[in-house]
């Protein structure tokens, strides 16, 4: 099933990514055709660095105005695009047949989206974000303010340009090259419900950040003292960087969003009895079996073997009867061999692999396990020899008795 992820960014744009397991074999997991909706075509040049990096990676961008009346996500039941970049924060409604539900259906069908929003975010954009689990501050004037972790270039300002370096610890999402410089952010505050397991916070603000209207006067003294306190604790030197980490951050994140990284696929599920090669339709209790599966990761250009030591196989019937780490030989083949438990029923081979940043692998293959056949039990049991002897001696004795009784007069 789809392994959905929503990521929450404190950057100039909020990026949302939703993905699902692709099944293309030689091809990458995702198509390369993106629809970019802007509320002003000038965005194309103002954000040329971002778009340029997308195009440089081979993505096919189609720029359209958000209120283009001919706008449509699908035709003849087929989606026209593989991903969506919404750089139209203030647009009140989309043109053509596209509306909030159309976008959500697009996402539910397993497509990816980047959504950008600023303080002018319209109800439409807010609605889409909320449906994906991210809530924007309702006050349109409010911005994220951080009096401690602000960008040092504007010491005297209202501290709305904040510097975030609380990044998610995941090479898959952010690339293997560490983002050294803090990421600068100015914009609208948003939050995700902590209980929402499908939302990832890729970059979070420091605990001292808050969302407020910078023009308004703060009246609440106790909370201010709280900030001062924390400020004392957090006071420290800052390294200076030539350049903010924004570009690297956005580039790497967009790679992840469009499945150029972190996409796993599992193919070639095989299982058979030890010593055989054919896949049986049913196992017997206490059979020894081997299970193998190949797991590949999309590297952006090709499928590479995925190497990890924590992929587990479950032999599952309501609860796992066998739970075992699978060994890999670095050629993508993961395998394990185990003994079928002494319980019959309809089992499943289950691989549930959920790792941060990677698409989830969820394989389940049903396999019944039967008890012994009537002729598969041990024929003669050593401990039962007294009973055999007893029954045969009784038969013999009865025969002798009959002969004696009948012919001895």
């Amino acid at each position, binding site marked *: 099933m789809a392994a*959905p992820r929503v990521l929450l960014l404190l950057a100039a744009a909020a990026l949302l990514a939703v993905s699902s397991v692709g099944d293309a074999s030689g091809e990458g997991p995702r198509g390369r055709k993106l629809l970019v909706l802007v509320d002003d075509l000038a965005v194309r040049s103002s954000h040329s660095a971002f778009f340029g990096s997308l195009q440089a990676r081979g993505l096919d961008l189609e720029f359209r105005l958000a209120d283009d009346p001919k706008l449509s996500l699908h035709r003849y039941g087929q989606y026209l695009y593989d991903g969506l970049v919404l750089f139209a924060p203030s647009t009140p409604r989309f043109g053509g047949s596209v509306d909030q539900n159309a976008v959500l259906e697009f996402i*539910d069908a397993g497509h990816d989206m980047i959504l950008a929003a600023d303080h002018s975010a319209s109800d439409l954009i807010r609605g889409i974000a909320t449906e994906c689990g991210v809530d924007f501050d309702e*006050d349109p004037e409010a911005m994220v303010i951080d009096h401690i972790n602000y960008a040092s270039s504007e010491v005297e300002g209202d501290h709305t340009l904040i510097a975030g370096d609380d990044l998610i610890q995941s090479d898959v999402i952010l690339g293997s090259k560490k983002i050294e410089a803090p990421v600068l952010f100015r914009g609208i505050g948003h939050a995700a419900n902590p209980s929402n*397991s499908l*939302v990832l916070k890729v970059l979070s603000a420091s605990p001292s950040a*808050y969302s407020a209207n910078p023009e308004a006067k703060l009246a609440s003294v106790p909370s201010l003292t709280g900030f001062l306190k924390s400020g004392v604790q957090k006071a420290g030197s800052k390294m200076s960087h030539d350049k903010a980490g924004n570009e690297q951050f956005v580039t790497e994140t967009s790679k992840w969003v469009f499945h150029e990284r972190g996409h796993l696929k599992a193919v070639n599920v095989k299982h058979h009895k030890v010593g055989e090669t054919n896949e049986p339709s*049913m196992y017997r209790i206490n059979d020894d079996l081997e299970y193998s599966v190949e797991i590949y990761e999309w590297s952006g250009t090709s499928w590479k073997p995925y190497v990890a030591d924590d992929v587990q196989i479950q032999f599952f019937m309501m609860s796992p009867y066998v739970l075992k780490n699978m060994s890999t030989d670095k050629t993508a083949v993961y395998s394990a061999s185990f003994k079928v438990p002494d319980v019959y*029923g309809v089992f*499943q081979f289950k691989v549930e692999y959920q790792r941060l940043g990677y698409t989830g692998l969820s394989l389940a293959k049903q396999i019944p396990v039967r008890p012994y056949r009537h002729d598969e039990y041990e024929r003669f049991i050593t401990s039962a020899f007294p009973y055999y002897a007893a029954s045969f001696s009784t038969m013999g004795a009865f025969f002798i008795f009959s002969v004696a009784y009948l012919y001895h007069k």
Partner: protein
Amino acid sequence: AFGGVLCAFTLILIGVLAFSIRLFSVIKYESVIHEFDPYFNFRVTQFLSKNGIYEFWNWFDDRTWYPLGRVIGGTVYPGLTLTAGSIWWFVNALNIPLSVETVCVFTAPIFSAIASWATYLLTKEAKGTGAGLMAAAILAMVPSYISRSVAGSYDNEAVAIFALVFTFYLYVKTLNTGSLFYATLNALSYFYMVCSWGGYTFIINLIPMHVLLCIVTGRYSSRLYIAYAPLVILGTLLAALVPVVGFNAVLTSEHFASFLVFIILHVVAFVYYIKGLLTPRLFKMAMTLVITVGLAVCFAVVAILVALVASSPTKGWSGRSLSLLDPTYASKYIPIIASVSEHQPPTWPSYFMDINVLAFLVPAGIISCFLPLSDASSFMVLYLVTAVYFSGVMVRLMLVLAPAACILSGIALSSAFDVLTRSMKFQLSKLFDDGPAISGNGSPNGSSASTVNTSSSKNEKTEKSEAAPKEKQSKKNRRKDKEVTESVSVKPKKEKRLSVLPLEASIVSTLLLIALGGFYVVHCVWAAAEAYSAPSIVLTSRSREGLHVFDDFREAYAWLSHNTDVDDKVASWWDYGYQTTAMANRTVIVDNNTWNNTHIATVGTAMSSPEKAAWEIFDSLDVKYVLVVFGGLVGYPSDDINKFLWMVRIGGGEFPHIKEPDYLRDGQYRVDAQATPTMLNCLMYKLCYYRFVETDGKGFDRVRGYEIGKKHFKLTHFEEVFTTHHWMVRIYKLKPQKNRIRGKLKKLKSVSLPAY
């Protein structure tokens, strides 16, 4: 010789009658398998005919009781399946290409015919040919038996009643002849019974009871020993060969009575042996010695038995047996047994419905049995008394009572005709003595019979315009009645001179008895045609517009088999499990073989939980579709809402968070405006009444007779995928887990305050 031919001819007619009276279901509906359990038997038979006996024996069925599966070969009574499988194989070997289904449909009628012949044999052993024919004719159409053996009712009882009666016959036969040959046959017949039905425990308790009765009343003989001892040894060995019985044949307390009586019988035999060896004085001395030792041994045996019983898991008694001994046991402790309607005690009208006039004839039969009390007739009385008790406990055991009632009624009628015709003959011969002097005994007898014959044939002619099949049946039967009286009247010549009634009285009583028989026949034919022929998967109702056919069940199962994936799991209440696997070929969670209470309770809990909790339960069982049966639109009363109390009760029995009082308003299950919120939010209510208000605008439930409580609601975790034509079956699909979780539009302004 002539009597023998007549008797054989009559028996053939009785067989034809027994077979044909059960064909109403095929003629009025179609040649289909009926109800629930027969579908399972049918599926097993199909498997058997396709894969052979060894595969059947080892069949592990992964399509039921998901994910536990069921070892069919080891948990099923194979008698019926093997019988029908053999018939199918035999017929096909003769190049008669019958389908398995056809064979299954007609197995029950065929065995009814055989059962009535077996009844003839049994009654003949007790009271002679006349009573035998009478009993056979009565059994051929007793409604209680018809209800379980109409064409299509392919259930264990269909062959088991034959096996039951035949085993009793062989037992009585052995008892009468003392032949070891019949004793061996008896054990084999008992084996067939064990193969066929769990009711074999009735045999293995009744026969020891009779043996004990014989011993106590001083009727011990070597014939009794031969009749009983081989049966216990061979029968137990053979029973242990049936996989489903296995070691239960020596481990469960249902069988202990037979072993105890076996011991007692040997003690008694030994005592008789000693008695023959010793002088009376010595014997008395030995008696005291033996009694002391014997008591000690008895105590030891009893102690061992008690220990065995206490050590076995269910205290030696299975729930069903306990509910036999203590009728309130099941409803108190085992809701799953009490939830089956055929496990309830019967009401008085059902006796009249099921055995009709036999209920009044039986006492006369008992008296007749006592007139000369023999081993055989005492067995009949004992059989009847125990069967009456058991039938009072469980409706379905009415079936065991039926043969007993038929036999005793047959005896009663036969004796009555015996007396009446004899006195008629006596009086007539006195009348004719004046006229044609020495015309012999035979002619008046013949003439009286012929007059009755002509009068009844006149009757037939006048009523021929109706020409209903009923009439034909009854005609046949009436003729048979006469034949019975004729053949019986041959005998009493030897016995002679008991009591002689006046001529008028005997003629009137004969006519009255014939009329009584006529009423019985009419009732039986009516019961066969109207009451017991409905296959229950196809329903019909008559209204002013004509006949309505409700074929919703097959519609739904066909939908499932055509529109769902072959490995999809379908959850429903267990009643529909067998049908779903047999007709839709889909995996079910629970079915009518209610062996795992927890699993059923899980489904019951899901049905009585709110939507989300139910979704989680079903999802954990990999369920994809949920099927509910809903009768509110057409007024089909046995739907899931009516069964709902059992789901709550069984579910609550295992999972205490389901509390029955939450669903009750003033002690009643209601789904109208007064229903509790728990009831209105549970899954069963929602699945049954989803969109129901759209049918008539008010949501009027025609089974419950009121408007439902909550009319407009939406389903969040389930979606309706199919509803049959009359809304009787509704199928829902579990919605997949969502790709995203909606955020809450909560305020972020924890710190900032609005400016003034």
